């Protein structure tokens, strides 16, 4: 484990050797690759300065006080802008996409995936605003996050999809049709009234804003699956429970309750009924590669601690002198590298398709419009109107195709499953080889083993991810349906 702050030079060298494709990319986009290296360096520095000294203690503390939240660690991350890594630069964010975020997550998770996942779950909450929200939501929510971050005040987000009786079912369109749902949003004048529960929501108890999906008609969930933005102070919204987890404890998983919670029309992200197709599928295409990176980071952390253990003389000899330990290290290193390439390729597939709209010329030109005009009431009304929302769909539709988006989803699902399995394999093998040694290294690897298991479960179980891969890539029965912006039907069923 690093004992000193890593230099930018070291980090750049490591990145370029681990990811040869970045070397190639550097020739064409040197500033971009430099930005990636700086971000990873920041993550490494944050880990070493703030997380490494406290992570084991925090994990133990949170076994007893599971609703404790380490705001100090979130605040320490603000200087590195961890809350706006994927927020567009047009609203003062860092402007990174999937590749940048995935690299950051791997680095952060190599020390403590619990702490890292606070930032990961936050980004998962930001993502629906990017793929489904309008410019008005960006100007309001994303700008608030980025500006408050600069002022030293964390504004966290969360994403709420899972329901008590529907986990797998709410992440796949075919299954959603038969899901047993508990949440419902009922249309009323001026907005919707939400009732029901969401569970296992990372950051759910600490988020200011939560992006949430639910049906407006539980009889027709797929057709009426809709994305909403929830503010923590909305009446009827509460957090009745924070879960007690085996690992990743620093990031709370909460149950959210809605009792006649009124959500105004302007808090609907996109059109009613767009929540699954394309909403959730685009979200998963964006988020599963970074989850693969989270898992890869956990695997890497376990590997690095195992290596330290193997090099430490014990009973007069170093374990690394044994052939079986050498083979195990080589095997771990191989799998970690393969998981890395899988998530980076998946992240690239997203950034080059759906993500390109966020970094394309159209978005960049937004910055040319004076901020006063962009944040004006007139602009806000336009962007929340059917025409404004349709504009977002147009931008996505001209940047990518359903085939490309589906491909990104398939690759992301592949990277997620590979990452989760790698994290379990490496941490499990390391523990097996270390025996009952009571050294510090084993403490970290045990934590990695507990933390790793969640990466095979959240963001769709690995079984579901394989199924998504099969359906999207092999059987071709699952396709991301981008909205045809010129369809009258799409405009006609809008709200706002």
């Amino acid at each position, binding site marked *: 484990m690093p004992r000193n702050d890593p230099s930018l030079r070291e980090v750049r060298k490591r990145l370029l050797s681990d990811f040869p494709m970045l070397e190639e990319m550097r020739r064409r986009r040197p500033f971009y690759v430099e930005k990636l290296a700086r971000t990873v360096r920041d993550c490494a520095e944050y880990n070493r300065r703030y997380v490494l000294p406290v992570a*084991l203690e925090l994990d*133990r503390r949170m*076994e007893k006080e599971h609703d404790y939240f380490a705001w100090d660690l979130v605040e320490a991350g603000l200087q590195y802008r961890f809350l706006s890594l994927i927020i567009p630069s047009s609203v003062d964010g860092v402007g990174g996409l999937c590749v940048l975020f995935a690299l950051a997550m791997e680095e952060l998770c190599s020390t403590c995936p619990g702490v890292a996942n606070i930032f990961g779950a936050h980004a998962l909450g930001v993502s629906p605003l990017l793929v489904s929200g309008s410019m008005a939501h960006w100007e309001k929510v994303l700008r608030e996050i980025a500006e408050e971050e600069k002022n030293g005040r964390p504004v966290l987000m969360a994403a709420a999809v*899972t329901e008590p*009786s*529907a*986990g*797998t*079912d709410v992440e*796949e369109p*075919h*299954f959603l*049709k*038969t899901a*047993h749902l508990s949440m419902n949003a009922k249309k009323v004048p001026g907005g919707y009234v939400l009732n029901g529960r969401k*569970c*296992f929501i990372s950051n759910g108890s600490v988020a200011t804003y939560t992006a949430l999906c639910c049906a407006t008609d539980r009889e027709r969930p797929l057709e009426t699956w809709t994305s909403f933005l929830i503010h923590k102070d909305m009446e009827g919204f509460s957090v009745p429970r924070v*879960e*007690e*987890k*085996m*690992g990743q404890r620093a990031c709370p*998983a909460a149950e959210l309750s809605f009792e006649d919670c009124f959500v105004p029309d302007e808090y609907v992200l996109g059109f009613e009924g767009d929540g699954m197709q394309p909403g959730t599928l685009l979200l998963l295409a964006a988020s599963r590669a970074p989850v693969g990176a989270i898992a890869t980071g956990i695997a890497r952390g376990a590997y690095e601690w195992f290596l330290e253990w193997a090099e430490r003389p014990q*009973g*007069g000899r170093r374990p690394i002198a044994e052939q*079986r330990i050498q083979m195990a290290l080589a095997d771990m290193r191989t799998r970690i590298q393969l998981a890395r390439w899988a998530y980076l390729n998946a992240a690239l597939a997203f950034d080059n398709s759906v993500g390109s709209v966020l970094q394309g010329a159209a978005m960049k030109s937004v910055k040319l419009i004076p901020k006063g005009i962009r944040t004006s009431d007139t602009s806000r009304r336009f962007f929340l109107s059917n025409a404004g929302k349709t504009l977002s769909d147009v931008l996505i539709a001209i940047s990518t195709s359903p085939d490309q988006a589906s491909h990104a989803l398939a690759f992301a699902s592949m990277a997620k499953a590979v990452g989760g399995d790698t994290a*379990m394999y490496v941490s*499990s093998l390391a*523990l*097996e*080889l*270390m*025996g*009952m*040694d*009571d050294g510090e290294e084993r*403490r970290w690897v*045990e934590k990695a*083993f*507990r933390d790793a*298991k*969640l990466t*095979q*479960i*959240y963001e769709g*179980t*690995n*079984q579901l991810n394989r199924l998504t891969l099969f359906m999207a890539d092999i059987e071709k029965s699952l396709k991301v349906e981008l909205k045809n912006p010129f369809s009258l039907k799409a405009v006609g069923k809008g709200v706002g």
Partner: protein
Amino acid sequence: MKPTRELLLDDERRMLLESVAAFRTDVLEDTAREMDESPASGKVEEAWRKAGSLGLASALVSEEGGGQGMDACSFCLVLCEVARASAGFAAMMLSQNLALWALEKAGRGEAIKKLGRGEGSAALARPFSELDGGGQSAFVPGGSTARLVVFVSSSGELFSVLPEDASVSMREISYPMGLRAARPATLGVKDLSDLEASGRLSAELSNELEGSLLLGVAAISLGLARQAYDKAHAYASERYQAGDFIINHQQIRLMLAEMLVGLEAGEAALKQAAESSGTGGPRLSACRAAKVFAADRAVAATLDGVQIHGGYGYMRDYGMERLMRDAKYCQAYPRPPQEETLSLLEEME
């Protein structure tokens, strides 16, 4: 269809298992979570006294010595049953019973009467690795609370030491991932020559001790795997997802079926090992093979058990994640599986 294991039980073992099953459901299941999360809360001691009154604290001590005189196979069945609720508690039972067994064999039967009744506990420190005149046992289940710790040196000398003895260092492992109810400790002896041996175990008895420890851990592992299977099967039967109860999804069925393969084969290997006869006791090679196999399958079964439960499996309320943590400890205790298999090869050669 019943598991094969149950068909092999004779009446005596069936009765024994029924009483242990009652102890599991009446005493252990309600407190297992607390024993895991707060092992110092007093619940372990409470259950321990009850186990003592059932004779489970002196199962391997001869009837003449005041114990149950249980055979290896029956004791494994007991451990398996107890481990379904708390593998940590079962590990503590194993450690105590082997310590008392060794003391009796070394001719120190008088020291164990009280302990055999569940009044305090003893612990076995094994493996004990010697270096520079001293030695260490990194993981002693029951070590932190034991009144007496027993270890055997490489020359077969048996030492029973008091934790407060000046030449012994006893350090509770502060945050073990698994087997927490056992409150494991690291035991160190600076200089063996400072201690007076309590007796000597012959090479055969020493081997038997080793084999019994391996069998015990194999039994605990299978208890964990059995519990994982039962819980996962029950959950899968009532969880509806993707248009059906998940028990009807082939992928889930395959995971459950794999668990059964491990259980059936593991129990057969355990039975064969426990009833095999080598020099002085069960054949060490059979014990090693049974232990490595059972513990590996327990890790796989409990991981899959968590996976089948999805998010609920990861939450502490459901008790699945504890099985996974405990199984991982059974895999590396008393020695890592690769070391065990290499020893097996050496013995066979």
